[in-house]
C-alpha cells in the first residue's frame, strides 16, 4: 500500500464521518431539537448555497459581467420554466454569448 493510498483511505474515512455525523446527531436530537438549532438550520441552505455561488461569480471563467449575466439568465429561465436543466443551458448560453461579445 503506497502512502498516497493511505492518505486517500484516511480522507475517505473522515469524509464519511462528517457525512454520517449530521444524520446521527439529527436522529438523536430528533423531535426535541432546541429551537435555536432549529432556527439556525432553517438558514443553512440559504447560507451554504450563497457561499457556494459567490466564489464562482467573483472569480471564474471568462469575464465578470459574463458570469453575472449567466446567473441572471439562469434565474429568469428558472423562474419561467421551473426546470434546472433549462436554466443551466440558458445560463451557459448567456455566458458564452456575453463572453464572446465582451472579449
Amino acid at each position: 500500500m503506497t502512502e498516497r493510498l493511505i492518505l486517500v483511505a484516511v480522507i475517505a474515512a473522515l469524509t464519511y464521518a462528517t457525512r454520517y455525523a449530521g444524520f446521527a446527531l439529527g436522529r438523536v436530537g430528533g423531535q426535541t431539537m432546541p429551537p435555536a438549532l432549529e432556527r439556525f438550520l432553517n438558514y443553512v441552505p440559504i447560507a451554504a448555497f450563497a457561499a457556494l455561488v459567490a466564489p464562482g461569480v467573483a472569480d471564474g471563467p471568462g469575464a465578470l459581467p459574463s458570469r453575472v449575466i449567466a446567473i441572471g439568465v439562469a434565474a429568469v429561465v428558472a423562474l419561467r420554466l421551473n426546470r434546472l436543466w433549462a436554466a443551466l443551458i440558458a445560463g451557459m448560453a448567456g455566458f458564452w454569448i456575453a463572453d464572446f461579445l465582451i472579449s
Partner: protein
Amino acid sequence: MVSDGAVLTPRMGREFGIHPGQERPWRSELRRGYAAMFPLWLGVAPFAVTYGVLAQQAGFGAIETQLSSMLIYAGAAQMAMISLFDDDAAFIAIILTTFVLNLRHILYGLSLSRELGMGGVRPRRPILAAVLTDESYGIAVADGQKGDPARRADAFLFGASISLYTPFALSTLTGIALGGVLPDAEKLGLELVFPLSFAVLLLPLLRTWRKVAVALVAATLVLAAGQIFDGGVALLIATIGGAGLGAMLDSRAAGS
C-alpha cells in the same frame, strides 16, 4: 413546517398513521432523485476529468487517482488533497484541511434529518449518508420545499446522491486516460455550472428580506474569509456566520 417548533414530516405522519399510502413507491422516488441530478452531470464531467489529469500530474498513480474518486467522492476535498500534495504539504495538514472542508456535511445531515424524521429510513442512515454531496443536498432541499406529501425524502435523497457517482467515476477515468493532456476546450467555462446550479437553487428560498440579507452576508463572508483562509474554511465560516445571523434575527423578532 409547523411554527411552534414541532415538525410533522411525512415520515412521522406515516408512523402515526396519518397519510397512509399517500407516498409514492420508494423506487420511483429513487429514480426521481436520480434524474433530478442529470443537469448537474454536465458540471461534474469536466471537473472530474480535470481532477484525473491534475492528480496524476501531482504524482498520484492511475489506480490511486481512480480509487480516490470512488472512495472519497467529494470533489472539493479531492482537489484540495492533490493541490496540497503537489505543494509537498505534510499529510497531517492535508488531512486537517480536507476535514475542515468537509465539516459542512454535518450541517447538511442535521438539516436533512428534519425531513427524514426519527424513524427508519431506507437505505439506512450509514448508507444514505455515505454518498451525500453539496449538489444532492441542494436538490433534496429544493424538492422538499415543494411540500409534496407524496415524496419520500430518503429515497429521493439517496437517488440524488448516487446519481453523480457514475459521471464522477467515469470522468475521472477519462482524465486518467488523457494523461498529461488537459484539453482546454473541455474546461471552457463549464465549471460555471456549479455556481449556476446553486444560484438557481438559492433564489426560490429567498422569500423574505431577512433571507436575502443572510444570503448576502454569507456571500460577503465567504469572499472575505477566502482572502485569509482556504476555500473550505471560508465556506464553513460563511455558512455558520450566515445561518447564525439568520437565527439571531429570528430569535430577536420572536422576542425570545
